[in-house]
């Protein structure tokens, strides 16, 4: 018996109003509707969520960890982007 696997979906859950959706894992489902229903059963059995996103895993494009050093290097030497770079006289308040 040769049978095609159901596609893989990545699951993102908003745990409560006001917070971002966060990646929680993945699951297999035949379509998006089933993926959302399965995600409810697999990832929110204890009220962990108020909203679910599913994305077919093949549609996720990711940066390459091997390039991480060069890729994030431009931010490395720009300490002036942080407030602690600047010296504020002690007598100045509310800054």
């Amino acid at each position: 018996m040769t049978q095609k696997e159901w596609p893989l979906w990545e699951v993102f859950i908003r745990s409560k109003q006001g917070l971002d959706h966060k990646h929680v894992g993945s699951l297999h489902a035949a379509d998006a509707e089933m993926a959302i229903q399965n995600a409810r059963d697999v990832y929110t059995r204890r009220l962990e969520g108020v909203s679910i996103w599913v994305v077919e895993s093949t549609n996720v494009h990711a940066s390459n960890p091997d390039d991480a050093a060069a890729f994030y290097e431009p931010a490395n030497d720009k300490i002036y982007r942080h407030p602690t770079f600047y010296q504020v006289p002690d007598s100045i308040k509310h800054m």
Partner: protein
Amino acid sequence: METLELTQEEQFQARIDADVRIEPKDWMPDAYRKTLIRQISQHAHSELVGMLPEGNWITRAPSLKRKSILLAKVQDEAGHGLYLYSAAETLGASRDQMLADLHSGKAKYSSIFNYPTLSWADMGCVGWLVDGAAILNQVPLCRTSYGPYARAMVRVCKEESFHQRQGFEIMQTLCEGSPEQKAMAQEGLNRWWWPTLMMFGPADADSPNTAQSMNWRIKRFTNDELRQKFVDMMVPQAEFLGLTVPDPNLKWNEAKQGYDFGDVDWEEFWNVVKGNGMCNKERLQARVQAHEEGAWVREAALAHAEKRKQREAVAA
């Protein structure tokens, strides 16, 4: 020049030693990947097969409350299996292949589920002892070096503690009941104690892969260390219940601040691992049957999704 440069493998080990988590797309040695796939899929299989001995009691639970709890627990185990399979898939393993390996007998699952659940007290013992042992194994894995595995384990551990407590509550209720009920609890403990001690795996001297797994931080304590912890944890709980641990050699050792206990019957252990336990055939058969009988559902759902996609494409 060459002496200063670390090999890829040395860099990898340095990250592990610094407690940096490894993520799916990071470089990793083949052996690390293979060991993890084996360990995680075995763990997932155990959750899946673990539903069977308890599923056996859902229709026989003594009250609606116990039935609801047992249903929720078995559903959690299906969930735990799914978290773990998806963690293994991030390493490149395919779900179908993992299931095929389980069904062909190539892949192993925890031997504890090859013992029968004969009385209601066994539901207590499975929760209290078996899940208690599982928690000891699993809590350290929340800090394991592979990110998706560690995250899955955090989720599993959160849910597992309900499992253990409901098991203890079953035992406590039996122990506070009639003499027959208390005898049933003792009889359950008598049968489950030793198989539970075997859950931690062979003695350290017979576990050649432990050192490498500890180096990679996919295992954080040795089998014997965890077994000792378990005994020290459970004996006072058995005493509280008024039950006797079935080990004539069990004795408090003041010097080591832990219990000395008798030898596990390793011949029995290996015999069950090799497939000759009381329920090996029955469990595997039930799994294969469920999988085969569900095949038409999987095919139909896929066909339905395909048809709907085409219909939407035409409409657009």
